[in-house]
């Protein structure tokens, strides 16, 4: 059976994220980056599956672990690499670094949960605008600790807003396993507010794509917010060297790696092609970033548009 264009594209997107993140992790110890980063290795199927269903003008609200969301959204890999390397050509000219990417209708921030009321406010705007646009808001399991999460869920539901909450449960917040963070049931955190949801424990991008489509069509139809709980796993450390998880556990989840799972749907030659194309793309992105001019202090602007 020949590879379908859809399968090809899903695999390519995931591979782009995977190789981008792996390159970041390799390059960090060599001092090519500055600051910190949180990579998406292992969770690629979530961003790629869900965001394959968005339309132009839809809003994506991301968090500290934003590279995968950004690339799946359609953000420029060159600009992302340049941002991480503090270049003038970075997504935000080097101001934002890894965690605060903003481009078109994509918004990330490093304060856990703080982005969620923004997502609700944007959904309110879009509902008023009536153009059928929706907001996709990603959050992690640990972010269920923040009170603002619940303020946001309540108002999203109360006002019937077009926002899909995508909870990526990778079973840890930094080093803390779910059971030390979360009382009761995850699903209840949404149903308590009357928000319908789908929960899935899968790394299959096709399944996740179907779930994402359900979520997006629900919110786009005007039926109010929707939640998806995607149980997943990250293969790499929380940020850089800080992995305290049992290696056997990591290995166990590695068996469910979303990439080979989707890769098997491509014929062997095509898969190799994809990998080669992506390899070149990632190498080029980092090479171009490395060659780009460093962020230029003379371009710093005042944070307010004027005194008076």
């Amino acid at each position, binding site marked *: 059976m020949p590879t379908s264009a859809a399968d090809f594209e899903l695999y390519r997107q995931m591979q782009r994220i995977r190789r981008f993140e792996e390159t970041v992790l390799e390059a960090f110890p060599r001092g090519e980056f500055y600051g910190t980063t949180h990579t998406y290795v292992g969770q690629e199927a979530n961003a790629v599956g869900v965001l394959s269903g968005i339309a132009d003008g839809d*809003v994506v609200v991301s968090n500290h672990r934003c590279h995968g969301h950004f690339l799946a959204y359609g953000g420029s890999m060159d600009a992302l690499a340049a941002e991480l390397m503090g270049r003038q050509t970075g*997504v*935000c*000219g080097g*101001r*934002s670094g890894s965690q*605060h990417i*903003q*481009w078109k209708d994509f*918004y990330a*921030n490093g*304060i856990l949960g*703080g*982005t*969620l*009321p*923004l*997502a*609700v*406010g*944007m*959904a*309110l*705007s*879009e509902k*008023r*605008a009536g153009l059928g646009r929706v907001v996709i808001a990603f959050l992690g399991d640990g972010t269920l600790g923040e*009170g*603002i999460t619940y*303020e*946001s869920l*309540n*108002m999203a539901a*109360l*006002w019937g807003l077009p926002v899909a909450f995508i909870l990526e449960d990778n079973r840890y917040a930094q080093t803390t396993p779910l059971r030390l963070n979360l009382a009761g049931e995850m699903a209840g955190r949404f149903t308590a507010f009357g928000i319908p949801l789908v929960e899935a424990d899968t790394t299959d991008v096709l399944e996740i794509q179907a779930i994402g489509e359900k979520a997006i069509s629900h919110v786009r139809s005007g039926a109010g917010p929707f939640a998806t709980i995607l149980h997943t796993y990250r293969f790499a450390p929380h940020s850089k060297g800080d992995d305290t998880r049992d290696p056997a556990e990591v290995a166990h989840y590695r068996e469910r790696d979303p990439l080979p799972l989707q890769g098997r749907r491509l014929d062997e030659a095509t898969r190799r092609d994809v990998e080669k194309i992506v390899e070149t793309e990632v190498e080029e992105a980092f090479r171009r970033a490395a060659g780009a001019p460093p962020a230029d202090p003379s371009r710093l*602007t005042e*944070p*307010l*548009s004027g*005194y*008076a």
Partner: protein
Amino acid sequence: MTTVLDELRQSLHGCMQESEQVIFLGEDVLDPYGGAFKAARGLSTAYPARVITTPVSEAGIVGIGVGMALRGLRPVVEIMFGDFLTLAADQLINHAAKLRWMSNDQVQVPLVVRTPMGGRRGYGPTHSQTLEKHFLGVPGLRVVAVCDLDDPGGLLRSAIMEDDDPVLFVEHKLLYPAAVQSLHDLGEFDGHRSGTRYPVYSIRVVGAPNPVLTLAAYGHMTDLARKALLRLAYEHEIFGELVIFTQLSPVDPAPLLESVSRTRRLLTVEEASVAAGWGAELVAIAAERFGPDLRAGRVGARQMPVPAAGPLEEAVLPGVEDILRAALNLGVATSSR
């Protein structure tokens, strides 16, 4: 008589009428109640689709305001008491104030957060504070305070309609029932306005000789400072100039320095305790500029929470007598005619 509250309310109506982009939200803001201090009265009747009463979620509603502003609306969020701004501090400091700059100026956040501040209503320690000092000096956040002079409604309109950055708009509770004073009709005072969007006013006793003292104040304290200005003139023959700021942060140094360059004496007046407050910034600006040619003092509350009982509250908050005493302590020579 038009009160400050009337003007603010009319201004809100005017902005809603002027632009469909203006959305008003807050706790208990629907008619007939119209918000705890009634600034929104009539608004939900006139614009039912653009006035939203919210759950008791101060952080959430400020964040929702930020989100709306990012998408091109001009939201106005009412926080019922300024004391609750502490709950929205993260949204103001880490989101509203940073987003524009952090995005490399790709987006903007034309948000206004309005809130009543201040004491002398006996509301006790969590409903009487003057907390704006904790929001001064945040890069990217403008703090504006209304007073009873000139054009309170215009000031609010500037923040809502003309400012593309987030504004924390502070309204002292005692100003709501106060009559708006026209600059051209201040009775015992001459008034002068400078600046544009968020003006600075300067006030002197009519016919007084050149001032030998600069008083700086904002909000409700301008009223106490005016009273002090009169008493200094009549009882002590000390003639001062009162410089009134409407933009508290960032401080525009020019009008301050202009006045102090003439008087070389600065007394700041604020309702919060002076520690690390607004007055400290003004004194520091003046001291940096005029170095060994400045006398300075600050008047504010005692460094305590605001108590509930009347006599305690009166003892803790600064009054006209405190201003007088501090002014006399500045060692001001009687003005020479």
